[in-house]
């Protein structure tokens, strides 16, 4: 049962030294990553980074050139039938279903492959079709569905079997805001009950739902960390300062004089104050009292936390600089 096996300690996915070479192209280069059971693990990287290749290796669809993979504790041998597939369900980037099937038949096919019992199957299928607003279209052929509807059906097909490990490749890329909200809500609800490994380029979504992230670029792993650690590590400390409009010029001059301040960026009547590296804590300690001492009326002084998107681009930038330097 989903959730039961998640109580077992260890990793849902262990990838060690994963390398995949195609003729004239190295898609993965000695990549290691570990996905904790019960976690929601984001897999990030720009287009062509090697995310889908890594997912296909994990699913046993393509062999790694070198490296070892364990899924739900079972070592992966390319070409063998694996027991872990009974507890895993995969959503491809562009969900596809066998030709000619209706939405309901496609879900029945998945349920039958995973050997769900008849009562459970019918009840779950009805519930999921309703939740994803596909109940009206359930009798239509999937080929006539829009891309968004196909993606919703794909997510429903993954959730139907209540798998222990969900591997989702860009699960919300074709969804409208309402569809995205519904899918992300469901993913959040799975936290602790199942392991979700998903790739996405919508960093806002990843930040919202993930506990851990692995970032890869051009086949190499750049980083993996807990989402909060990552944000703290890459937090470019910034403060938003708002003063009375008549004090704005004077406040700007005073802020710039402070040695902990690197620069200030005016933003819609506010001042975004960027600290010198490693001196962010000095800003509220020194600057706020100084402004008040000078008679400047401060109406807002808040920390502007870095989001995942900023951290992501910073990591990519560092990686590219590193390559140029080498």
């Amino acid at each position: 049962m989903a959730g039961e096996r998640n109580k077992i300690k260890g990793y849902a996915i262990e990838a060690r030294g994963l390398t995949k070479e195609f003729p004239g192209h190295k898609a993965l280069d000695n990549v290691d990553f570990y996905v904790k059971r019960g976690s929601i693990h984001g897999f990030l990287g720009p287009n062509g980074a090697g995310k889908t290749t890594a997912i296909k290796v994990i699913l046993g669809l393509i062999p790694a050139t070198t490296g070892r993979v364990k899924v739900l504790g079972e070592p992966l041998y390319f070409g063998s039938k694996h027991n872990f597939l009974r507890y895993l369900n995969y959503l491809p980037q562009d969900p596809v279903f066998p030709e000619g099937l209706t939405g309901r038949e496609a879900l029945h096919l998945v349920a039958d492959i995973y050997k769900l019992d008849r009562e459970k199957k019918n009840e779950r299928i009805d519930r999921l079709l309703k939740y994803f607003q596909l109940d009206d279209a359930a009798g239509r052929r999937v080929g006539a569905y829009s891309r968004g509807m196909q993606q919703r059906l794909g997510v429903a097909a993954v959730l139907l079997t209540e798998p222990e490990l969900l591997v989702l490749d860009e699960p919300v890329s074709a969804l409208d805001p309402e569809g995205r909200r519904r899918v992300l809500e469901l993913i959040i609800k799975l936290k602790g009950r199942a392991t979700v490994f998903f790739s996405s380029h919508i960093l806002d979504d990843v930040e919202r739902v993930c506990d851990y992230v692995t970032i890869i670029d051009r086949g190499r792993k750049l980083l993996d960390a807990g989402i909060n650690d990552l944000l703290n590590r890459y937090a470019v400390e910034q403060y938003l300062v708002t003063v009375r409009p008549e004090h704005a010029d004077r406040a700007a001059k005073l802020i710039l004089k402070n040695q902990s301040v690197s620069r200030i960026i005016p933003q819609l009547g506010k001042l975004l104050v960027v600290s010198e590296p490693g001196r962010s804590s000095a800003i509220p300690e020194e600057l706020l009292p100084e402004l008040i001492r000078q008679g400047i009326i401060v109406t807002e002084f808040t920390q502007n936390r870095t989001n995942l998107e900023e951290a992501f681009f910073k990591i990519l930038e560092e990686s590219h600089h590193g390559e140029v330097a080498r």
Partner: protein
Amino acid sequence: MTVLFLKELRSNWRSFRYPAFLLILLFFAILDPLMLKYMNEIISYFATGMEIIMPDPTPEAAFLSYLSDVSQIGIMVLIFMAMGMVAREKENGVTGWLLSKPIGRWQYLAAKLLALYSVIIIGLIACSALAYLYTMSLLGQAALNGSILATICLLVFTIYIATITFTFSTLLKTPLLAGGPTLLLFFLSGIINMLITNSDAANFYPNTLLSLMKPLLESTATAADLTWPMAVTTILILLMILLAGYRFSKMEI
């Protein structure tokens, strides 16, 4: 396995591939005996002012006409129908999606092959029976033993061509890439058959099964004459299945 088999039948039925093949069989089963029965009237209707006398049609000739049409046009339709059975799903991602589930690669191929063979076997037996009975009602009874043996020859040869198509569809990337070599091989094997028809090599050649249909119907050949071509064709079918399965088990999807 049953789930995949039923999925295969449903998908191919809905996409009109299986119905197209069955309709072609049905078309010849009904049309050929009728055409032969009324051939003289048809010719005299179109060739006004000329007198063309055709020999009286025999039941054997009518049944053979049906078998021959199926062995050419029917098989070509079959190739078009089956050329994408694996290649199409590899191309559009369905194979990857299915194999990410608890389904073995051999199981995936076996379900496809069984569905295809079932349609061929049921379709050919049913339409041959229909053609036989219809011929009997129009022209009299053809030799039953010869008709059954000739139908078996066509059945095995059709399964042989279906297996070639399946093998190419498994090994190659797109339906067109799979269909091209199969058609080429089909025509080429017909030409080779004409060249070796009077040599000993013909005994070990699959197309001999088609060449034997006429003598079997006319009772100038017996079941014993089928032994070698049938054995060779069966071995080739098994070898192709093994080749397709082995390559597919190592294939990047």
